[in-house]
């Protein structure tokens, strides 16, 4: 191979048409989805912590489960919300669903219809669990919820009936009456707002399910103990599904997740090698 032709290859590699990359991405996603490879999935420390935290919630506890997510975040957060709701329904706890993202209210409703708590878990709506609906006021709405739940969520989402007519609401007024808080979240409002309005003033144990991209933002709260445990990204969701013994959507997507990452790593490596090769030939760089 001559010097000129080798230079051409490295330069070409640095300027691959983005459409070629997108096409390859389609291939590495569709191929394992159509014929699964079943790559092994191990369980990480964080997923274990989250599982143990939810599992250790004592019987009779009142758990607020907030759907702070958008439809766009569903592929990553949807499996987490279903798995967490299932885990909670298997326990003898009172579940209060709510949403600070408008799509969250619909997603919570979808989860109820998917899991069918009455048929599959012997739970009764309004006695064992309730969907309090959506509050559009973000952080201010969280403060309102902490002070008076009936002002933040006047009617429930399923029957549009006043919240105080349900048995599950007996003795419940504000944040002090709840024992645990879980939020599955896409962004703002999310964990910083919950920490400011619920965790710091009331000291309620708090765990979250977040997008993978949110990890650097969540980690400081976790290190400070304000968030007791968290799962982030589709990988954690799959691990959590394994731990609760209900492998589902997240598990089914682990193969393409691995193949796409292999492709991205390959392109990063090729790009860097090509860059260093052309730089050394040009004699530039620092």
């Amino acid at each position, binding site marked *: 191979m001559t010097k000129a032709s080798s230079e051409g290859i490295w330069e070409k590699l640095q300027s691959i048409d983005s*459409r070629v990359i997108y096409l390859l991405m389609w291939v590495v996603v569709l191929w394992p989805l159509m014929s699964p490879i079943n790559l092994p999935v191990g369980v990480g420390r964080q997923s274990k912590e989250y599982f143990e935290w939810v599992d250790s919630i004592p019987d009779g506890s009142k758990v607020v489960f907030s759907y702070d997510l958008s439809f766009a975040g569903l592929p990553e957060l949807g499996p987490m919300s279903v798995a967490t709701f299932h885990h909670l329904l298997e326990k003898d706890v009172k579940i209060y669903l709510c949403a600070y993202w408008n799509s969250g209210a619909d997603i919570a409703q979808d989860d109820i219809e998917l899991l069918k708590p009455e048929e599959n878990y012997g739970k009764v709506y309004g006695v064992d669990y309730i969907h309090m609906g959506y509050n559009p006021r973000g952080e201010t709405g969280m403060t309102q919820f902490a002070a008076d739940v009936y002002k933040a969520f*006047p009617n429930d989402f399923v029957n549009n009936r006043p919240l105080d007519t349900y048995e599950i609401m007996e003795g419940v007024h504000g944040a002090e009456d709840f024992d645990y808080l879980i939020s599955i979240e896409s962004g703002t409002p999310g964990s910083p707002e919950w920490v*400011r309005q619920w965790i*710091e003033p009331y000291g309620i144990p708090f765990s979250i399910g977040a997008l993978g991209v949110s*990890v650097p933002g969540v980690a400081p709260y976790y290190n*400070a103990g*304000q968030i007791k445990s968290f799962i982030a*990204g589709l990988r954690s969701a799959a691990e959590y599904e394994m731990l609760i013994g209900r492998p589902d959507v997240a598990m089914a997507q682990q193969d393409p997740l691995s193949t796409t990452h292999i492709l*991205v790593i390959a392109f990063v490596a090729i790009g860097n090698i090509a860059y260093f090769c052309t730089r050394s030939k040009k004699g530039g760089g620092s």
Partner: protein
Amino acid sequence: MLEAIGPWLTAFFLLSIFSFTYKENPWFRFAEATYLGVAVAYSIGFDLDWLLNQWNTIWSVTGTKILLFAFALLIGLLFYFRFSKKYFYLYRIPLSIGVGTYIGLSLRTMVFAQFLTQIKATFIPLAAGTPLDIFNNILIFVMVVCVLIYFYFTAEHTGPLKYTAKIARYTMMAGFGSAYGNTVMTRMTLFIGQARNLLKHPPSFATFGILILGSLLLRDYMAKQKQVAVKD
């Protein structure tokens, strides 16, 4: 009926949006505009429903509350003076109420939740627990101190500060790398989730895949032919 149309609509809009990866095109623009319209209407619908609930359950019960509700609505309507050059200043009234309330509520606990507690979390024993804990704690201590020094701009990064600045740079690079890795995972997951949706209904996927991609390729081909004709 709706269940039969659903997968076709999903495939059409998903592939129209994905067609942007080929190049900017009318399919994408149509899907983008439709999405924006639907998303805004969806939000407004939910917000109005909440407002109606508030009215029915809390504010319509006594005369005083009705007056207070009407007053709040009037203040809210001042937002529309954003579109008037003459009365623009009125728009600032609801804005300042909103900003003031939000900042007041956040600041109430922000100092503790996002400042003091975070500082306290770095006060960790350097020799406690397992060897891995000790290593982690030392790492946290060194990195926090070095990054803080890095953003101390009064003194130039020379002498010993040159080394702390280097450690700080590596620390931040590691953070950015971790953020990038997580971003890749999130973006890939979104793509995989939608690809899975498309595979649930192969006829719609194939039909719109061929239609949209075919039309884009044909448009490019025709544009090239036109260029050749002009040159000739």
